[in-house]
């Protein structure tokens, strides 16, 4: 009987399984979470840039156990007639059954669609890539960047991981130099020369979970997400805000919102430092 050797440990496991809410409350009373994190502490973030050699840009992000991969593929396209000098940015988030039993195979579920819409909104509103920069020949030829984000392991807080992987992948994107041949009306690519994509701003997302209607903590795991009574997602864009989203849940006061903003801005600095470090180490 393993229970006789470590009775305290068994009791802990059974409380965690049978009464998760009480289990969490006991920890949160002491301002700490069961995994040892403080309320304002993110899980260790690991970033790997350029892991897909066939893509124009790519990044792999690990936020604790949550693993998200982003690949940027560039293709030629003809622009819309109403916006002849604008390229396209097409984000797509996939939550496959591989990453969690919550997701089923087949067409994208609600959460995947909501995440795709979220990523699209961040891309458009932050203007981190100017669509005019993707123009090769006005009215004739533009770049279309497919930003495919794939979740490999889902352990909560997918929005933050998606935005981080997207930004890192965009920053590492190298587009081949293209000349548009006027006579043949065909593009001529230079196989050796590449140019980096111009990134104008740095959107960084931070997600907060609301627990028991009053406690706020950052970076919820999947269990914390299921126990939470609401979430707040804040996307900062350098020194401004780009998107604030609180989809229902427990009401929060203005003061609580401001605490979230402060944490989001400090997180933004941490993340940008991390991306810069990794990009630097690749160049060397």
């Amino acid at each position: 009987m393993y229970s006789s050797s470590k009775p305290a440990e068994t009791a802990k496991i059974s409380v965690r399984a049978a009464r998760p809410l009480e289990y969490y409350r006991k920890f949160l009373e002491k301002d700490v979470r069961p995994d040892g994190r403080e309320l304002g502490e993110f899980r260790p973030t690991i970033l790997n840039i350029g892991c897909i050699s066939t893509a124009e840009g790519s990044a792999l992000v690990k936020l604790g156990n949550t693993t998200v991969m982003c690949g940027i593929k560039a293709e030629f396209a003809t622009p819309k007639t109403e916006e002849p000098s604008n390229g396209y940015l097409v984000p797509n988030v996939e939550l496959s059954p591989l990453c969690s039993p919550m997701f089923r195979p087949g067409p994208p579920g609600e959460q995947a669609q909501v995440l795709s819409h979220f990523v699209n909104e961040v891309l458009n509103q932050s203007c981190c890539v100017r669509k005019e920069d993707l123009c090769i020949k006005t009215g004739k030829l533009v770049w279309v960047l497919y930003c495919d984000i794939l979740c490999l392991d889902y352990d909560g807080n997918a929005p933050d991981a998606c935005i981080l992987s997207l930004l890192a992948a965009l920053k590492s994107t190298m587009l081949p130099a293209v000349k548009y041949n006027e006579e043949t009306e065909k593009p001529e690519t230079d196989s050796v020369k590449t140019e980096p994509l111009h990134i104008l701003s740095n959107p960084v997302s931070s997600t907060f979970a609301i627990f028991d209607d009053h406690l706020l903590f950052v970076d919820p795991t999947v269990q914390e997400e299921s126990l939470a009574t609401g979430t707040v997602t804040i996307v900062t864009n350098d020194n401004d805000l780009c998107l604030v989203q609180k989809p229902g849940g427990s009401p929060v006061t203005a003061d609580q919102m401001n605490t979230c903003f402060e944490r989001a801005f400090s997180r933004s600095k941490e993340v940008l430092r991390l991306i810069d470090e990794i990009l630097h180490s690749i160049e060397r």
Partner: protein
Amino acid sequence: MSNSSKRSNLRVMSAELSLLSRPDGSATLFQGDTCVMSAVYGPGEVRINKEQIDRATVEVIYKPRSGLPGCTEKSQERLIRNTCETVLLSSLHPRSSVSLTVQEMQNSGSLLACCINSMCLALLDSGMSMKCLVAAVHCVLDFEGAVFLDATDKEEKGAQACVTFVFDSVDKNVVMVHAVGKYSVEQFNKCMSVCRTASADIFHFYRETMTKKLKRS
């Protein structure tokens, strides 16, 4: 154009309750030219795979005016559903389902706010128990940093940021936020205080609408 963009209060609202005969509660709400119709069925039978043993399952179907619903509509649907779950006392009806249909009739700006307000009116009309009422207020920030309440679609296009807040009727705390664009924390807080003041008008409007309905019957 000039007098419409100088607006610092809400557009004229008008509502009609119980205009559909089959649902348990229904409402059509006009906020300016924006019009949304909502209908509530429930509490009723629930599909086995969606059954929750401690509360009712809330389903929201958002119907765009034309075309099939895509990612944007799904996102909108989730915002409405989560807001509805927050206010509805769903634990009173375990193992049942509450189904809401929100039909967009005309979008002349502030659509999400109009959807949530009409949903709240439909729930009031159905007589389901709620924790509190909610009022949604939309505003836009222009490039000079001025706040315009309850924007029209034209104003939304030329705006620096579009913000929708939902407040509860008890403490006027924030139940839902959807804010996109480029803005500072100060601007966000300014929008919040302006919208919070305006939410009182919406709660007043709910009261008037219900009084009118109850007097008639």
